[in-house]
């Protein structure tokens, strides 16, 4: 059977994040009374042991030549990397500007930008899909449920 080379660097990202969080938990709760941190400490120690096992396993695989230190699975396929980063950035921007733009306008702009990033170029789709989605979301969250979303220019205009 052909041996598959594993990207062990990528395999250790989640354990790395988990370890960082466990250390943060231990440090930030060091002064607390035992009962307040007992559960987290028990879980944290178990987590650290599991991470140690994973690190040992990765080191052994590296030694046997069964894997590399690479992070390839996270970037692959390369041609989609910037699209992915763009989608996350637009979503973050949508959340950050929500208090000013309001739900409806923010969603419309966000969806338009994401469709563009992902490669949609038909102007009809670029107009209709964000408008339809924003209208549905407005009707459900603002008009029917009157939930606490920040109101922007569209909501103000329609509320008159």
């Amino acid at each position: 059977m052909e041996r598959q080379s594993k990207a062990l660097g990528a395999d250790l990202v989640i354990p790395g994040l988990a370890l960082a969080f466990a250390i943060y938990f231990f440090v930030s709760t060091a002064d607390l009374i035992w009962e307040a941190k007992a559960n987290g400490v028990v879980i944290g120690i178990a987590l650290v042991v599991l991470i140690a096992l994973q690190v040992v396993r990765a080191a052994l695989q590296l030694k046997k030549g069964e894997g590399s230190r690479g992070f390839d699975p996270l970037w692959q396929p390369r041609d989609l990397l910037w699209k992915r980063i763009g989608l996350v950035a637009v979503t973050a921007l949508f959340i950050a500007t929500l208090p000013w733009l309001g739900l409806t306008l923010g969603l419309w702009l966000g969806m338009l930008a994401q469709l563009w990033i992902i490669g949609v170029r038909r102007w009809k789709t670029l107009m209709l899909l964000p408008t339809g989605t924003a209208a549905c979301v407005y009707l459900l969250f603002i008009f029917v449920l009157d939930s606490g979303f920040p109101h922007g220019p569209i909501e103000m205009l329609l509320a008159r």
Partner: protein
Amino acid sequence: MTWQFLLDQFAAQFALWWVVWLGILLGIVVGILPGFSPQNTLIMLLPLTLAVPVDQALAFMVALYCANHLAGGVPAILMRIPGSGGAAATTLDGYPMARKGQAQQAIVLSFTASVFGGLITTLATIALLPWLSKLGLYLRSVEMVIIMLFGLTLIAVIAAKDTLKGLISGFFGLLIGVIGTDHVYSEPRATMGFLELYDGVPLVAALIGLFAVSEALVMIEEKMIVEDDARERAMQASWADTIEGLRITVEKWWHIVWTAFIGLFIGIVPGAGASIASFVAYQQSRMWSKTPELYGTGIPEGVIAPESANNGVTSGTLVPMMALGVPGGSTAAVMMIVLQYHGMVMGPRLFSTNPGLAYGVFVSMAVAYIFMIITILPLARFMARIVLIETKYLVPIILLVTIVAAFSERQYTFDMGLALLFGVIGYIAHKTNYHVTAMLVGVILGPLFEQYLVRALRISEGDLTVLFTSPVGNALWALLVFSLVVPLARSWWTNRPSRRQP
């Protein structure tokens, strides 16, 4: 309880058909949308349920609750985004079925398993209510800690193909679940200075991030959800696929029955809930199967088992509420508030003082399931078409609309950012085979685990050996070890060197 009494109850519930239907329709919509929980919907509709007569309020709430459990499987099958934690196990075989062009069949199986599983356990509950209600009394904090560990370990082993990675995901989730103030001294822990985290990590944000956002980021690699070679089959799907789904349901009727009972028994345990039940049912189904290696590749049993158990939970959750006055879950708690507002006192005396209500809840549930199959089955064909929509249109809708839904639980913009953060973590987990399901269930169980562990430690004055002192608890430990060892032993037996040689 006489037959005449039961028949009268059924007749009374059927007369409320319009209320039941309204609850079903709303429950389906709420269940399909990730982030909308039945308890939040019921809270929003409190002015309505408090204003109408108690029988109507009850029929509406029960129908909404059951339909919600059923509908959570739809996005789990079509987009690998469970509508709720209880549908997370459905993604394991439901989504591969959809990718193979069998989305319609998978949805039909999910509906029929949900309805018949729910119906069978509801009828069993009606017959066995006085005895079932005592089951919860045997489970104390010690047993609950073991049940939580049992659930998490099973999920970690089942969901991830690599057990170590599954356990890391699960324990990482558990530790995230510890964020917030503790139960005894209200000391904030690991909140990074955010006041929004004092109440703990919002589950809806975690669900949306780990499943919806991360899935959308992975989904852009494909043109459509359905695989290229199965596209033709998916496009030609007709009513025959619905009939095929029904045929498989009839063929696998026993599978529905026993996995539904797993849901019922786990549902009776307060707090354990659908997410554990569906995974335990999936694991048991795989363990007793003649072809366990096919699980995860898209087989009907992998959809039937979790969906049947997920709906078996619905009647189980209401048993402690009716019999002991202890709500088995958050939706049951909201229902209890409404019933108490109407002057109903839950507890053991309810069966003698108000048998109509005590049994009426479950009769109402049975009626809701009967109405549900008629309502939803014809929709399967149209729902399955989602897998044929190009992902370039689906991805922005999933990303932005689900992020908006993350706001709905607590109405904090912070939760939307948190969902995005969970999405990035979920994406990394997806790409490196750390299963997000184990992480999510860890986040869900974290606060409950702590609650029971601290209680057990308080009773034992800090002695951890208390976890091995109860007969029921020890039986659960044995079951846990058995469930872990049997698949490993089986795998070893199948792959042993003497067998591999020609």
